[in-house]
């Protein structure tokens, strides 16, 4: 944690602050439409389903499945050089929202599409915690 963090960091804008605040306390928090209940992320002023403008941020299950994944063998960002090859997955959350993230606690060649995963919270800096996913162990 004291070593200089060299990967890109998210921009902590006001609109998405509840998501990053949630991650720091170990919760996957998404915006939810108060009119129709549809979850969304990143933050938007209106619901893409019903166009309602009223929303709240709510904690979610943190559960989802791997919709697909790829493995980077090229570092487009210098900070990722040391981690090559690293995976990126599309996570389809139980609440219907999708995220790009990384799978941890599993070898790249063991990842399978459809795999059940749950959120884990990985501090990057003092102010930023990233939301990653690990396989659900039943």
């Amino acid at each position, binding site marked *: 944690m004291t070593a200089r963090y060299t990967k890109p960091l998210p921009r902590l804008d006001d609109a998405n602050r509840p998501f990053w605040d949630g991650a720091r306390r170990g919760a996957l928090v998404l915006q939810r439409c108060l009119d129709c209940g549809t979850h969304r992320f990143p933050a938007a002023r209106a619901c893409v389903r019903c166009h309602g403008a009223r929303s709240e941020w709510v904690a979610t299950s943190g559960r989802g499945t791997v919709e697909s994944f790829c*493995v980077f063998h090229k570092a487009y960002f210098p900070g990722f050089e040391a*981690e090559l090859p690293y995976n990126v997955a599309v996570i389809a959350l139980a609440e219907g929202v999708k995220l790009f993230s990384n799978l941890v606690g599993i070898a790249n060649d063991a990842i399978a599409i459809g795999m059940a995963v749950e959120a884990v919270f990985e501090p990057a800096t003092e102010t930023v915690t990233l939301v990653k996913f690990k396989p659900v162990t039943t």
Partner: protein
Amino acid sequence: MPSRSLSHQVAVVGVGTTRYGKLPDHDAYDLGVWALDEALADAGLTHRDIDGLIVNRIADYQRFGEITGIDPAFVTITPGQGRFSGICIEMACAVIAAGMARTVALVYGNDGRSAGDRYGGASDLYGSGGAGLWFPYGMTSPGAFHALMAQRHMALYGTTADQLGEIAVTFRRHAALNPGAVMRAPFSLADYHASRLICAPLHLLDYCLINDGGVAMILTAAERARDLKAPPVTIAGFGQATALAGSSFPPEDFWRAPMQQVAADVRAMSGLSQADMDALMIYDNFTPTVLFALEGFGFCPVGESGRFVSDGRLRLGGALPTNTSGGHLSESYMQGWALNVEAVRQLRGSCGARQVRGARHVQYLAAAPVVTSIVYAGAA
């Protein structure tokens, strides 16, 4: 969908291409001017004949008009995304049909290689503009986006790396017959597998080639085309559909829904079906996009595209010669424009060693969040 009455009402009367490769002495304007000069010469027209101007990827339409001395009655400019080549050509048809212009020049200039454009990393804007949100996880680049789609296609349908490799090998064989192609040395399936992984499951040879170059096309009303120099190639059908909602993420249906819509519209407008096509020009930013397009446009059943391509069907001499120029993978990534020009050249019978004999109909297909397709018809 576009009106059936527009079928064969617009013709391509001029096409022009620059050299492709590293052309550091030319910026995007220079490349556009060069391509336009070639297209005008091809058509036997002059700048004064142009009363419609659509520029793509060139930064400023006003500057382009200033340096070419064109004062068109209709002008517009479009972003440098490959999906816009099809959009621009379709728009030109609509503009001509509406009488807003008689003769439209479409001009594309791309100095991306010399300018050091990067498709991945901090400047990557692929998707719907929110790319930076995912950089902390290392997610970036259109290549990764298509790798995610390819991985899922493999899991769902048993598509293999060999099948992707066959596409890359085929287009390189075609490029070997195209003096204008940037990469012409043939390679084997073994070479394909040995090429380095960029974003697995995709290898270097699954990726298109970033280069400098320019392309121009001149479209006019088909009745006027008969008096011009070039053998007329008419636009028999075209269509467009989108999948913008949720498009930050790979589409679960590989853009099948919008492609099926466009395929139906094009068929209705042109009266032509898949079986009438003598060759295809498929937007090949990456090899898997070719598979998605073949399925989406109904050239093979859903999930069957890998097996469909694996027996040499896309090769010259095969049942459905595709990207006879070498395409984006081996000729140059001219963002759809050069593929549309190749369609025209095939229908004129001017493709030399890579000519599809007796080609009468060639279809351009683009699988992307904006799907477009154009069917070109040669003189019977």
